[in-house]
């Protein structure tokens, strides 16, 4: 039995001079992966930023575990259990890998010993990070930085984990590892929102699928309720692109 951890009601948001989201309604449950797709400029990053508290809403409510967090600061939401892994692997490049992980968990583990244990657990998840623990994070490769970014957030055991295009620029094997790590987190009960540009990899692990276009949620359904994948492709690629996909599938 999964319960709802996050709900957005009629949320509209944007930046100081540019509105980006209109009337967003969605619900995310624990132990499930919600995938959000959409082209550039559709508002995916804006949506995650709004949920995380980096942007103020114009209107609407954000409910986290039943509690209204719409007016709470970003750091407060993080400490309540809302974790966001931003796009472009935004870790602290000048700090070492180990320091990055410490920053990820400093507020959660009051005792040094517990923080240590949590960090070791992340090293178990992504062993390459252990090898690089004393290196400045900026010297890591793209895939390693992405793993560090995820570990940094997951260390604090968030209830909702949001990932913004974690596969961008990564080799397929690494993307597979990332997605399987995400699936494992889902299985352990975390609620996950996964924003992506590529379509099929995320679709495989998705439980719910949403599509954003020009600031609106034009599709939001459980995967099992979607009859035809072309529905998504058309929204995503436009007619010409969807046609090409169909053609290449048949050839």
């Amino acid at each position, binding site marked *: 039995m999964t319960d709802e951890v996050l709900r957005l009601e009629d949320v*509209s948001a*944007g*930046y*100081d*001079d*540019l*509105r980006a989201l*209109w009337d967003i309604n969605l619900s995310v449950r624990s132990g499930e992966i919600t995938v959000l797709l959409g*082209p*550039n*400029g*559709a508002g995916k990053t804006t949506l995650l930023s709004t949920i995380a508290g980096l942007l103020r809403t*114009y*209107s609407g409510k954000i409910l986290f575990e039943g509690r209204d967090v719409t007016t709470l600061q970003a750091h407060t939401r993080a400490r309540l259990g809302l974790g966001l892994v931003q*796009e472009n692997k935004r870790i602290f*490049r000048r700090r070492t890998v180990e320091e990055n992980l410490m920053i990820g968990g400093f507020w959660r583990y009051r005792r040094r010993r517990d923080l240590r244990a949590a960090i070791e657990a992340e090293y178990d998840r992504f062993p390459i990070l252990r090898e690089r623990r004393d290196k400045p994070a*900026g*010297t*890591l*490769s*793209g895939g*390693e*930085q992405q793993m560090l970014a995820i570990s940094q957030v997951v260390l604090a055991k968030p209830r909702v984990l949001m990932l913004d*295009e974690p*596969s*961008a*620029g*990564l*080799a*397929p094997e690494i*993307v*597979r590892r990332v997605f399987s790590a995400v699936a494992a987190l889902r299985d352990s009960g975390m609620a996950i929102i996964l924003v992506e*540009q*590529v*379509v*099929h*990899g*995320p*679709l*495989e692990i998705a439980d719910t699928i949403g599509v954003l*276009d*020009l*600031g*609106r949620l034009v599709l939001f359904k459980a995967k099992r309720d979607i009859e035809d*994948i072309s529905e998504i492709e058309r929204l995503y*690629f*436009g*007619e*010409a*692109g969807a046609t*090409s*996909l169909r*053609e*290449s*599938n*048949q*050839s």
Partner: protein
Amino acid sequence: MLNETTLDRLRRVSPYAALLIPVLAYVVPVATESPFLARQVTLIAIMAMVVVGLNITYGYAGEFALGQAAFYAVGAYITGVLAVNGHNEMLLTLPLSALGAALCGLISGIPGLRLGGWSLAMVSFFLVLLIPDIADITREWTGGFDGLPGIPLMVVAGTEVDSNGYLLVVLIVATLVFAAARNLVKSRIGASLLVLKQSPVLARSLGISVYRSKLLAYVIGAVPAGIAGCLFSYLDGYIAPESFGFSVSVGFLAASILGGSQSIYGSLIGAALLQLGPLRSTAFQEYSLVVYGVFLIIGGIFFSGGITGIGGALIRRVRARFSPSPSTAPRAPARASVSSTEARRTAVTDKASGETLVIRNVTKAFGAITAVNDVSIEAPAGKVTAIIGANGSGKTTLLNLISGFYRPTSGEIILGKTKLSTLTAHRIARSGVARTFQTPTIPAGLTAADVVATARLADVRVGVLSTILRLPKFHRVRREDRRAALEVLETVGLSHVANQPASSLPLGTRRLLEVARALARRPRLVLLDEPASGLDRDALLELANAIRRIREAGVTVILVEHNFSLVLDLADTIHVLRRGVKIASGTPDEIRTNAEVLESYVGTAVKS
């Protein structure tokens, strides 16, 4: 604190009506035979001149500087020393004072502008604090801490001038300074300062040398202060270092903010308010710093950003909140040019010409991350070459490499015969490369036509003197600027917004405006950075048309884009990047059916 529209209304009455002010300022004190009034008017005029210079440096060019009092002091002492030593001709001392101030501006500006942010303010402020020391070192001439007494009455063209004459001279000089300042900011030079203030990146992409332009604005801003100093030294026949200290400097800044830093006439209002306010009475003198301090804090919070201050931010937020969604926005009526997809050729499209862009084995690494890996692409003139790929594929990095905001780790980029990869961004822009930005970068305070006209800033130059004196060359260039801008606007279908403030136009229009600005540069190469992002169907159609126009003109077009159908529609050749590597090249038909490409877009193996 008066906002732009109120002053705009005042200004529309007539710039010549403003001449009434100096006339009244002379007639009233003379007619009422009031030396007190004459003195107040003189002090206001003098202070206003100093503040006008600060407004040019700070309000227009965005450079925070605290050195006006130093330039003021230099002007005063040059005149004072010359006058005391028998060279009292104002027609000599005034230009020398102005020159001295300009030199001082150079000395503090060249190092001060090397590091951003506070360094210019600090260097210029240091100058102010050094005035007593310098006065002491040169005490033989300047009288040191005791000051320089015995400055004779002003002599103009050989004739000694009495107190009414002095007032007249001050007012005439002030009027001329204001006219010059107004002419300077209401011109393409003023526009270039606004570009500079908005974004140094935009300035570079337009071919403007940021450092040199800021230095110029700073030195120009010093000149009126020097002139004011010259006049000041004749006021009491005595000057001393105390007149040029810290609180005087702060007073100038306060006056600038009070009247509105981005307004020429505002400096007059600020100076008047400060001069006539309660601070003048001796009872309040000792509280003056306290009042200035509080005012600066409040003024800084609410007003120093001008229209972009807190009040402005609030207004923009409210406006943004109620803006219509692009997918449901009503179509604007009477846009005759939109629906036509026919070729609309204008003289603009006949004159431009492109050259082949060669990207050869270019690699860019950031630490351990290779963003672009041994990519080679050839883009011929008169064709649209599209570069596509998912986020993280390196396409944006490649664009920044071509336009010079990054240097390649290895490999070269050549346009025609010019090697771009060793040039700086603004030199690349000058060699005929124009680009747009993913987030439209449009300076506040300009109309759409003005924005397009900024494209010509680096290619056609008009000197400061021509601009101030409104010589024929200035007018000719201005007409050409306007004509060129309107032509380009018509080419992209934006004639109907030519005179509207550009920064409040909708996103799609601003994107088109950026394309228009790029076209107006008569470039050899145009780089389009994800222009379709966030646009609805109508705006996409207009964008596609505009790009076709550019192609017809024979320009080389590089289109970095994520919108697959737009790319299939427009491109002559498509290159696909994945994780920094080029994985496919071909015509739209070839790419459309290329399984590897689709896989890179669509993720792991395509499922049916």
